[in-house]
């Protein structure tokens, strides 16, 4: 039960941090339609985060807000990809393309989880992430195939984000412990590579080669970016301890 909660925490943190990053785009998008679209995706991710965190927290008698607002940085279990800054629109699309490709495969498998709650959350989430994947795929094609500038920016965005792919597919002892309730990350890598390579081929862009030497988000080791994100996200809760909103 505790292992499953730890596992749910990882998925919840990924979605929460991504929602926080995407939320910043609302009112800043390149066109109003994108304010709406990125807002939708952020809302979906936030919804998934709340489901996973609520389920995880139940194991420790904690609410979703306890987990979101009162943990310190090393207690967060999100992978580095999700905390990377938004950068320009192409950087955000690159992050989104990787995130959605990964989450789609993950949630699709997770619908077969032996844990009925995880299966149920994944069942709802996979449909939404299917749209996220389509959204980011269309933008990868558009930006790569648009103008010279957009092509250059799209390639730069992919180069910047690709080093964070590796961490998503790393297995560790918790995965073994969770067993049939979870999904073995490494088992998704081949299809991820195939699916993303197909899109990038259609876009006429090479799959970036950069491997990443490190990671560590699953064990609370984050990049220098997460601290700032959390300071902002948690400020009110910390300023008014014990208040309800």
């Amino acid at each position, binding site marked *: 039960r505790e292992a499953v909660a730890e596992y749910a925490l990882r998925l919840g943190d990924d979605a929460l941090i991504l929602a926080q990053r995407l939320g910043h785009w609302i009112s800043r998008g390149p066109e*109003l339609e994108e304010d709406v679209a990125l807002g939708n995706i952020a809302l979906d991710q936030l919804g998934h985060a709340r489901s996973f965190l609520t389920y995880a927290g139940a194991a420790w008698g904690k609410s979703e807000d306890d987990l979101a607002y009162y943990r310190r940085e090393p207690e967060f279990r999100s992978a580095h990809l999700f905390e990377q800054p938004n950068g320009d629109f192409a950087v955000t699309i690159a992050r989104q393309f990787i995130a959605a490709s990964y989450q789609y495969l993950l949630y699709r498998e997770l619908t077969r989880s032996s844990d009925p709650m995880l299966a149920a959350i994944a069942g709802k989430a996979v449909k939404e992430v299917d749209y996220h994947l389509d959204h980011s795929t269309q933008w990868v094609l558009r930006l790569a195939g648009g103008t010279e500038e957009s092509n250059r920016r799209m390639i730069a965005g992919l180069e910047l984000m690709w080093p964070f792919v590796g961490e998503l597919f790393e297995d560790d002892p918790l995965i073994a412990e969770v067993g049939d309730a979870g999904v073995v990350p490494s088992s998704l890598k081949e299809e991820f590579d195939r699916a993303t390579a197909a899109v990038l081929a259609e876009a006429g862009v090479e799959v970036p080669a950069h491997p990443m030497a490190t990671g560590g988000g699953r064990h609370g080791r984050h990049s220098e970016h997460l601290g700032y994100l959390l300071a902002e*996200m948690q400020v009110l809760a910390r300023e008014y301890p014990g208040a309800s909103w």
Partner: protein
Amino acid sequence: DAGQANFDAVIAKDSRIEPKDWMPADYRHALVRQMSQHAHSEIIGMQPEANWITRAPSLKRKAILMAKVQDEAGHGLYLYSATETLGTTRDEMTEALLAGKARYSSIFNYPTVSWADMGAIGWMVDGAAITNQVPLCRASYGPYARAMVRICKEESFHQRQGFEILLELSHGTPGQKAMAQDAVNRWYAPSLMMFGPPDADSPNTSKSMAWNIKRFGNDELRSRFVGMLAEQVKVLELELPDPDIRFNEDTKSWDYGPLDWAEFKEVLAGRGPCNAQRMERRRAAHDDGAWVREAAAAYAAKQSASNDREAA
């Protein structure tokens, strides 16, 4: 002529003008001005609330706020489309906004400095907007009236959410209650001024009323709104910063204290606390997004060219 006769008849029986109908140039112009201003207000109005998305104090409130700000983008899109039926493109309207030629509601030039402002904006600013807009659901221009029906439905939802935020705060810790009262103090007068200057100083009102665009004068709507606030503030156990509020049995309407119209004019003239910041942010989003819009257009052009080739 026939067009004018038809237009007059439609107005006379309080029916709807549709895009294909003939209409007087003044009428068209007045509608474009009012509708595009309304659209711009939705778009600029996203900023003061977006300011708290990353800092919302609970995940539930964060989700509600995100959805709300996103709704505003949707309203903006919907209103731009409705305005386009009058023959003005969205690009032209955006251009006018960025050039400082078109207005948006002055209220969005005030800063949101605390979480309670999310409550006050929902309760008071959206409340004033609804009071203004409900009569517009019967506006004589069909696309505008229909847009208003849809928008009003969502706005009342937003208003209730704002009220709930304030309710939670006013029944929370003393610090939270103080935060709520402070927000109500700051947003009260600006929200009353959202109805525009007193009727005596409002040059467009009579024409708009003749055309069935406007249905009530600024002062009447403002008084109604004050009555709504005066009732609901009791439930909140907060106070309105105006000792002169009372129901006037003679006029059967709500009285309120004097408003600082000099400040209103200052803000309208671009010298409010956030005018420059709001415009700067909109301009930055527009400029930073230019390469994306160009890319999308170029890609679409290539795609359609290649479809043509395939079809040939």
